[in-house]
């Protein structure tokens, strides 16, 4: 083994990549997958009679978590770059409402989708410029925009819900299916696939990692650090807007409370999924698993007949355990 690797090195051939990958692999990521498997097994047994392990229920879980998954993909990029985005929860509501109003007033899906995404990108751009130009930490900037955007969502329709009757919209972003697969599942899969590709296989992804790892090193290497930070916040805003469309499509309507509690769920999903809170490394696939963990927990606790307050407590405890397990590595 050793001699072979040595010969390879001498001959300037890439050493066996798989060995390196295994060695460099982050054990935290396996904790996530093992934990996910464990939760599935426990619920499968304890909730056998409540229909946990039926195809409709499992598809239901994936559908329910679609907005969380989409936002988690964006947040992985943001956290990796060493920033955070707390504004996503309220962007969900505003973008959903904008889509609803556009559909109501103009009956044009492209216009509604474009306006909604523009809201997300706009908030992200605002966050990004504030962070990079005014040099306020993203924690504070996005905390402020969280409130600001939530306020806009409230005044926009005077706290009124907007029903959406556009069938094609509701199908594409909610209850529809393509080739027998729920569009919500497809949106999740697409977000994760694109996110993963961008993260692991593009120059932009490499720059995001470098910026969160060592911004100075990135800068002296010619990486446009500020531009990367703005970009990840814009992407996060776009993901939140897409999440808003998914809620609007699924619920056939929009209201200012959409996404209200999502910010914490998304952060929990991303961290439980084995991502670092402090930048420089991360995993999009892990975030998907983290998001599914959140969905399964939700579903299992409801099927298990826990009251809302009991669910909150149980979820809190489980997240604490998961985060403790995934962050343990940091201290080593």
């Amino acid at each position, binding site marked *: 083994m050793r001699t072979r*690797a040595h010969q390879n*090195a*001498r001959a*300037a*051939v*890439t*050493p066996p*990549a798989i060995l*390196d*990958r295994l060695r*460099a692999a982050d054990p935290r990521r396996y904790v996530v997958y093992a934990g996910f498997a464990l939760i599935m097994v426990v619920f499968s047994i304890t909730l056998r009679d409540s229909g946990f392990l039926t195809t409709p229920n499992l598809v239901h879980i994936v559908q329910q978590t679609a907005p969380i998954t989409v936002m988690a993909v964006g947040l992985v990029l943001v956290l990796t770059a060493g920033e955070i985005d707390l504004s996503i929860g309220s962007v969900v509501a505003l973008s959903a409402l904008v889509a609803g109003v556009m559909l109501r007033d103009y009956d044009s899906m492209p216009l509604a989708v474009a306006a909604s995404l523009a809201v997300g990108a706009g908030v992200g751009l605002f966050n990004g410029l504030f962070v990079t130009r005014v040099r306020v930490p993203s924690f504070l900037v996005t905390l402020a925009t969280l409130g600001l955007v939530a306020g806009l969502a409230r005044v926009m329709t005077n706290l009124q819900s907007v029903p959406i009757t556009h069938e094609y919209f509701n199908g594409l972003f909610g209850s529809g299916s393509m080739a027998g697969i729920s569009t919500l599942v497809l949106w999740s899969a697409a977000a994760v696939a694109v996110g993963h*590709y961008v993260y*692991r*296989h*593009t*120059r932009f*992804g*490499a*720059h995001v*990692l*470098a910026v969160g*790892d*060592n911004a*100075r*090193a*990135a*800068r*002296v*290497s*010619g*990486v446009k650090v500020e531009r990367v930070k703005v970009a990840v916040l814009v992407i996060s805003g776009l993901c939140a807007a897409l999440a808003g469309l998914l809620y609007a499509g699924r619920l056939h309507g929009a209201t200012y409370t959409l996404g209200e509690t999502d910010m914490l769920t998304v952060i929990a999903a991303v961290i439980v999924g084995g991502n670092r809170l402090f930048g*420089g*490394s991360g995993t999009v696939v892990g975030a998907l698993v983290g998001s599914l963990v959140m969905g399964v927990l939700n579903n299992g606790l409801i099927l298990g007949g826990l009251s809302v307050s009991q669910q909150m407590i149980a979820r809190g405890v489980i997240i604490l355990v998961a985060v403790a397990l995934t962050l343990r590595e940091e201290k080593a």
Partner: protein
Amino acid sequence: MSTTATPSAAPALRLDRIRKEFGGVVAVENFSLDIHPGQIVALVGDNGAGKSTIVKIVSGVHHPTSGSIALHGDQVHFPDASAARGHGIEVVYQDLALADMQPVYMNMFLGRELVTGPLRRLDKKRMASQTQALVDELDVRIPSARATIRELSGGQRQGVAIARATHWATSLVLMDEPTAALGVAETARAEQLMRQLRERGRAILLVSHNLDQVFRVADRIAVLRRGAQIGVRETAKTTHNEIVSMITGLQPADEA
């Protein structure tokens, strides 16, 4: 950028009467120096003498208040660090400007990643194999080009930083106290790398407080004191004592 210029041609780097003020403070005044390809010139002087300022001017981080920079005979002006890099100038920093959690090959190619195909997918395979070939050639002993920086020792990291400079610097490598954080054996390895760079025809400007090191590797020694150029000596024709007295001010500046 031609690196095949004959040795007697214009110097790789010529600094002509460089002056730099920060507000009212004069950090460097009237500094002139030539470095030819295949030469190591050491820049020595006490703390605050202006050594790093000169490195930053040549690497495009600072702009000189007056004076000029020429590379291979052509006057240049660097609006920023990328411009200097574009002219084949690389910097090796004391505090290792490396991204710790990324693999060696990504650090080697950071900002200049190789991509392939219509989707411009990162060509990790090619980056890793080129990195492996380079570290093997320079005999930088690291476990693998795919190892993350944080798994490496300080010496291995500096080896990576110097290998990176070797790879990208077509004309000039600036080193600001590159071995200040290294142990004896690791310092020796880094000095070996500097000699290899010299053999490859690169010009090297080495900032160091370690006079033994300066005498081991440099061809010429330039002395700065409080921003003023005291003199330049051929290593073979000077002594520790002379350099020390130039640094400390016991010996007056050469007539300009």
